[in-house]
């Protein structure tokens, strides 16, 4: 945590709303990225992120001075994503697979197709592996921080990331070779 983030968190804890607003503004894009990758739906992601910030605000007085902000924040956000996934599981998802006419004016770029494949492969991972993979390889948290953010042990965190990498490799190797 940079000294500035630490100062912002400290000021926000003391009730400084401007400091909290700056904190939200700084972390919102990363939070939205994480939630979007976790949930695969922009509206669900936005809802989870906003809900997470409300909870962060309520929990700030309990934040231990000098502790790392990111694992604490991602723990709250990941919890909101899990709750959102649970709610969504109660609904039936309809996937249209036939009679889709491609728009000839907008050809699919190779990058887009790879990105879609990655998102599809990521969505097929168990939620706890997807979470660990994103925290490690996209949000750049250390294994210690992942353990703290997910409430599991260090070796379990390493194992989740490794299994996620193995599964993605299995699913994406062919796609990568065809590009």
């Amino acid at each position, binding site marked *: 945590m940079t*000294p*500035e983030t*630490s*100062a*912002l968190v*400290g*000021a*926000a*804890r*003391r*009730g*400084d*709303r*401007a*400091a*909290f*607003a*700056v904190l*939200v*503004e700084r972390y*919102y*894009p*990363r939070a*939205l*990225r994480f939630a*979007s*990758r976790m949930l695969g739906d*922009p509206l669900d992601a*936005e809802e989870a992120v*906003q809900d997470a*910030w*409300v909870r962060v*605000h*309520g929990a*700030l*007085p*309990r*934040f*231990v*001075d000098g502790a790392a902000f990111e694992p604490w924040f991602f723990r709250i956000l990941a919890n909101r994503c899990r709750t959102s996934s649970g709610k969504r599981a109660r609904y039936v998802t309809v996937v249209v697979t036939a009679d889709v006419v491609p728009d000839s004016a907008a050809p699919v770029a190779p*990058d887009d197709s*790879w*990105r879609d494949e*990655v998102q599809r492969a*990521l969505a097929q991972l168990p939620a706890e592996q997807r979470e660990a993979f*994103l925290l*490690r*390889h*996209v949000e*750049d948290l*250390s294994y210690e921080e992942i353990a703290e953010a997910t409430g599991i042990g260090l070796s379990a965190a390493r194992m989740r*990331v490794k299994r996620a*990498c193995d599964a*993605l*490799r299995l699913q*994406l*190797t062919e796609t*990568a070779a065809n590009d």
Partner: protein
Amino acid sequence: MTDDRDPLTARVRESLLPLPSVRPTALAEVLARIDAHDTRRRSLPFSRRWATALLAAAAVVLGFVGRGVFDASAPSASIATVPSATAGSASGVTTAARSAGLSPGMVPVQFVYDDASANTVQVVGDFNGWGREVVAMSRVEGSSAWTVVLPLMPGRHLYAFVVNDTQWVADPRAPRHSDRDFGKPESVVMVEAR
């Protein structure tokens, strides 16, 4: 932190790394939700508030005890107890502040500007004669954020920030005013009546 990154993982990471665009109203929405949450909490009947507080305290204590951590120095007062009020739908502008001392009908509006290189920041707008009354912003201690709370009448206001007494900049978090009255960038804030 690329110690365990093979080429395929690195390629996956690259495609997942771009940050999504954030809607300009997102920040204002978060703050409005926090205010609504706090208002709901304060409006709970006294007995339910105590029951909720006791249950929450029990859960927290159990959690801390379970992990062998207890921070006795943590302040007991919640940020939620700071008197605050929303001003409404100002895009990208924090619209909450203490409501004490306002003239009737006025709404406290908090302006925030983030600039690590600034030595001084002022807010100028139609509400202060575009700088005839100097409104200096204060730096949030230890950060690059500058802030001030102003009482404004409900309605549409134009404003800008003056950095280091010379540089006139629009608020990067707020919508721009399309018609530049002074040939300089200006932002728009909509203040809703409370």
